[in-house]
């Protein structure tokens, strides 16, 4: 409950502007064409995309006919349920039982991979696990330093390579040393890359393969960090990363921003990938299990 509230408070200050309107129009009027138009505006503005928005509205219209609803007030519950139904529950368990368990963090530039790697490290450490961070972004300026600062702050060891070095080698070394030293988790931070860059995606595939050589079955999880402010491009990103490195779950970062992250719906529908965590700030504790209820409520809260 605490988590849920924290999430909502975070969203609260941001939602007033765009979503004050929904309760206004859903609360009072009769259902008419304006209701549908307003609803479309609302959903599209939350980045659900026109296709998903149209689809949701089509489903709602059907419910309205079937149940003989007339007041738009009654729509609000149905709408909420309709959106909830379109989000997968987080799979139980999220992670297989392996030791060490290797998680590969992937995503486009600046999406929040490094910060999320640190946040995850903290969560696992709080559960009493031994966590090793691997700084396999040898490309971006001071990317290694960034993870090392997190490691120091959170008291987590970091395996790092040389700037310009081979990211696969960093992952390999980290996994092997984690296995030798009895670690529970290895979180491998990789460089940001646009999904359209062939060479960089090949490099990522190599990191994936090399991980498997260091430890059979690794990486056990590949998490795509998606910036919640991303629009329609998010689906292309998710598709490309899934194809390249078998993404197993999504982390939606920066959900504390004013954006609603509506692309999550299309990604779930098209790719069937669960959304596992929500990033809700820049501090290490600002990561929570994805909560469908809070996410959908966030869309309507005013």
């Amino acid at each position, binding site marked *: 409950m605490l988590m849920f509230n924290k999430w909502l408070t975070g969203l609260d*200050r*941001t939602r007033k*502007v*765009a979503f004050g309107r929904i309760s206004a129009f859903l609360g009072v009027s009769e259902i008419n064409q304006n209701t549908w138009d307003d609803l479309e*505006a609302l959903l*599209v*503005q*939350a*980045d659900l*995309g*026109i296709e998903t928005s149209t689809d949701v509205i089509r489903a709602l219209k059907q419910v309205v006919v079937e149940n003989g609803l007339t007041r738009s007030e009654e729509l609000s519950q149905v709408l909420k349920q309709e959106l909830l139904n379109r989000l997968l529950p987080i799979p139980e368990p999220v992670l297989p039982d392996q030791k060490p368990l290797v998680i590969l963090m992937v995503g*486009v*530039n*600046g*999406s*929040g991979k490094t910060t999320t790697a640190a946040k995850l490290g903290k969560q696992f450490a709080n559960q009493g696990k031994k966590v090793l961070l691997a700084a396999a972004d040898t*490309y*971006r*300026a*001071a*990317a290694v*330093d*960034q993870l*090392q*600062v*997190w490691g120091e*702050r959170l008291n987590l060891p970091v395996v790092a390579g040389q700037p310009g070095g081979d990211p696969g080698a960093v992952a390999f070394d980290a996994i092997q040393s984690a296995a030798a030293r009895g670690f529970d988790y290895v979180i491998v931070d990789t460089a940001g890359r*646009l*999904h*359209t*860059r062939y060479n960089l995606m090949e490099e990522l595939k190599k990191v994936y393969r090399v991980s498997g050589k260091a430890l059979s079955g690794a990486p056990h999880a590949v998490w795509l960090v998606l*910036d919640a*402010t*991303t*629009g*329609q*491009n*998010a689906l*292309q*990103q998710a598709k490309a990363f899934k194809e390249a490195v078998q993404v197993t779950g999504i982390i939606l970062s*920066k959900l*504390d*921003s*004013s*954006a*609603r992250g*509506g*692309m999550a719906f299309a990604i779930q529908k098209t790719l069937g990938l669960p959304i596992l965590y929500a990033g809700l700030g*820049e501090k290490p504790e600002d990561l929570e299990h994805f909560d469908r209820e809070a996410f959908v409520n966030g869309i309507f809260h005013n």
Partner: protein
Amino acid sequence: MFDNLSGRFNEIFQQLRRRGKLSEADVDAVLREVRLALLEADVHYSVVKSFVTRVRERAVGHEVSKALNPAQQVIKIVHEELINTLGEPDRLNLSGPKPRVVMMVGLQGAGKTTATAKLAKILRSQGERVLLVAADPYRPAAVKQLQTLGQQIGVDVYTREGVKPPDLAAQAFDMAQKSGVSAMVIDTAGRSQLDDALMQELQAIARRVPVNETLLTVDSMIGQEALHIAEGFRDSVKLTGLVLTKMDGDSRGGAAISIRSVTGVPIKYLGTGEGLDALESFDPRRLASRILGMGDMIGLIERA
């Protein structure tokens, strides 16, 4: 998606073979598709709405040129309107007493620090004496990141540990003035437009040093929220330009239209890669085609 659109238009072409003036039906049929294309490009819902209304007014009753069919004619008008909205690429305003100050602002991870270094490189190649100012004390290793980039391009970076960004900017400005620096680029921390404390920090910087340019740096993959973000920054600081980053991907970059039409702030640069040479001026025609997502068709229309 691109093929898809061309396909949809070809269908419309089949239906619209007549000549003469554009009828309401001609125009509406095409504008329905244009609306979808713009929404798929992340242009803001309300911006699309007013844009489509504007084009409709202009297009209905318009004479169809000999070389084009009615659908192509409407697209031509749409394309022209998009180009007009995007405006011409604007140069950096570096007038007034030295050092001239450029401040980079924007959301977390948008590409500010990278753009700061890229800009420094361009300025130096134009003969400026450049100083970079590392005014992000929050993100882990943000200062180190700028220092590393500064080293790569051979430009000095001003840093002071434990000094607040407004004080830091003022100190850097003093030093720059004394040492004959002609242009100073301030890299600020990523922030939400709703974060009052951090927005006030930007205002404080602008009070302490005379800022020539405040460039809002926006990730081109951004969705509908771009409009509110730009409004939020504009309401706090005097934005003078827009930098659209990560244009080397396959995002359509519709945010450019939203931001430009709501704030009127000119687009100054496009970021087109992680390398420090990848900062370009933009071509409104090409950007308009990209946003509309119908490159082939525009080519066809332009050759007609």
